[in-house]
């Protein structure tokens, strides 16, 4: 049977992959995608803690997923918009 540990290990692995992407990629859009990946890893944690928590019927996981995944969205999107409209060529310095 799955334990909470497996989900937490998976999400920390995804977080590290996202962090590596943010640190090593030069294309700024892919850096933003790396940030997206780290946010997704956090969401897996929310859902896993909700499911394995003392009171899964309280639905807290659904809300704690809903708000964190929706609130960084404007920043992310405006980042993409800024890159595509203003800077044009998002290449970071080596």
């Amino acid at each position: 049977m799955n334990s909470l540990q497996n989900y937490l290990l998976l999400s920390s692995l995804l977080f590290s992959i996202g962090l590596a992407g943010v640190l090593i990629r030069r294309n700024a859009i892919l850096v933003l995608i790396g940030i997206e990946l780290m946010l997704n890893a956090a969401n897996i944690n929310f859902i896993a803690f909700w499911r394995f928590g003392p009171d899964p019927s309280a639905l807290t996981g659904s809300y704690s997923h809903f708000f964190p995944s929706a609130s960084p969205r404007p920043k992310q999107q405006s980042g993409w918009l800024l890159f595509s409209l203003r800077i044009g060529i998002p290449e970071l310095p080596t």
Partner: protein
Amino acid sequence: MTASFMVLALLTVAGMAAAMGLRNAVHCVLALTLGFAGIAALYLQLGAQFVGLAQIMVYVGAVAILAVFAIMMTHNPESANLPVFSSQWIVGCIVAAAVFAVLARAISSSAAFTQVLPPQPDATVHQIGDSLMHRYILPLEIMGLLLTAALIGAVVIAMDRKEEMK
């Protein structure tokens, strides 16, 4: 560890690693879609139907398309020969591996995370909508305000650009 979890975890990790490692940016986004679909399947496996389907709609659908658009709009043919990774990529990989090592050690050494799955709760969309409209109405409104502000900001940025071109 069940077989379905293993398959989904492998699929997700492979998709995400490819998304961060491939050379072509469009291929990266396609691999990212695979990873997001794997995460959605994990949510469904955990019994969070609403969240899983929202993940498919928002991430697999909208975010991937937005990323493809952003990449194509900013595509620069001159940058095709430039390296895709930063020159200090080894340092970045070491930092990420160290972060994973710390997290994994903390998670696997704790006894608090080994409990087995409690019985399946019934989290219906009806219940979620009901409490979003009653108990969590204020956070919902604040989020709506934030999204509206972002929308207006996007329009303002685009308008500025148009005036510059004239």
